[in-house]
């Protein structure tokens, strides 16, 4: 009982006990300064590790957006590869020996019976006159 009385008195006293007004004014500034100091004094490795970990934290992106982005990336890659094929010269090129060769870069299509179809018009004329001779 004595203990309870003393605690009750203490609480009653504490109800009227308040910090000075300066304390509330400086509280936020001091709190931020303390946070900054903690960060600054952390070892560089810890900071780097935190950054690396944060990179792998996936943002809350809907699955549909993720799938469509992946599909767009695959489509773009295929388009770029085909475009590069277009620029490579010729269905036909001539080797230094002078023999006309089939060019593996020719873009084939599929025929009605499923066989590969090549439409011929190379990007370089057939020629083997490598030297000025007669």
């Amino acid at each position, binding site marked *: 009982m004595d203990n309870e009385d003393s605690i009750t008195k203490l609480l009653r006293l504490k109800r009227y006990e308040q910090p000075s007004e300066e304390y509330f004014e400086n509280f936020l500034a001091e709190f931020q300064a303390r946070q900054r100091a903690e960060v600054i004094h952390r070892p560089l490795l810890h900071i780097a590790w935190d950054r690396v970990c944060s990179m792998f934290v996936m943002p809350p992106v809907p699955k549909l957006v993720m799938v469509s982005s992946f599909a767009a990336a695959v489509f773009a890659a295929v388009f770029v590869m085909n475009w590069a094929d277009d620029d490579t*010269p010729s269905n036909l090129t001539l080797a230094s020996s002078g023999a006309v060769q*089939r060019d593996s870069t020719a873009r084939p299509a599929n025929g009605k019976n499923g066989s590969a*179809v*090549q439409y011929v*018009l*190379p990007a*370089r*004329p057939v020629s083997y006159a490598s030297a000025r001779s*007669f």
Partner: protein
Amino acid sequence: MAVLAAASLFALTPPRASAAEPNLADSITCQIRKVFDENQNAVVRVQASDSLGVRLGSGFFIDPTGMIYTHAGVVLNAEDVTVTFNGNCLPATVVTTDERSGIAILKTDCISPFIRVGNSENATIATPVIAIGFPEERDSSASFGMIAGRDRQHMGQYFSTTHIRANMAVNRGEGGAPVLNLNGEVIGILVARINDSGSCHILPIRAAEKIRQDMAHYGELRHGWVGVEVEDAPEPVNGSTAKITALNPLANAAEQGLKSGDMVNAIGATSVTTSEDVIDASYFLTAGEAADVKITRDGQQMSIKVTPKLHPLTPAEPLHAEAPQQP
């Protein structure tokens, strides 16, 4: 006085085109349509197949007996070759495939429409031209363009003979298509597009006709070879800088009288002023047919008759693909 002034004013005023007279644009359009309509029946789609698949290109009849020019790449080593025109599909035999010019000659058993041969040497810069071919899987179509120049090399590689370069949009599948002038005469064969620049290279019809003449006269390709290499000398001699630098021992140039150091002035009918001129001269040499080579040696001009040998890169046997049997 006033009458005189009025009369002179009338005389100086340019005549106005009457409403009935067609303007230039209409005339050109009419002429292009006329050329297309008159010649599209002589253009064929060439289809060749082998173990790797099917190749499609264009070609055209060059005479009424069913002889066809096409691109060598279409029928090279093909097993079956067919041509389609006017709704007919006929088997074709490969008469020859010439790797040097990049063209092939086919033969079908039919009486055919054909395109008249023009003079490719008259096709100068800014001459309008029309190509008729089969782009990819589409029907025959016409492309209109203009001759932009003549090239002896492309991307550092010399052609076997000078090619015509035209600014004309062409597509895959049009390899072997005829290129015509506005008179409806074929002046060349479409052999290459220049990447995606909207330009193309055309083999002059004169170069193709050399192949056909060889086949007609000898039954085989007869590219001539003297075995002489030339380079440009620093100073011209008698108007030519083409100097003989080497004689190939496999040929017989030395035995026929040519020497290293001779300056070449002409080969056959082709005059030579630079070392590059020998490319065209060489193309039109025929093995076994004597040709005069005009040279300057020690300040003296002379003419030496040489008989070229068969060019070492000429195929020993024509590449034949027999026509598939008709059912």
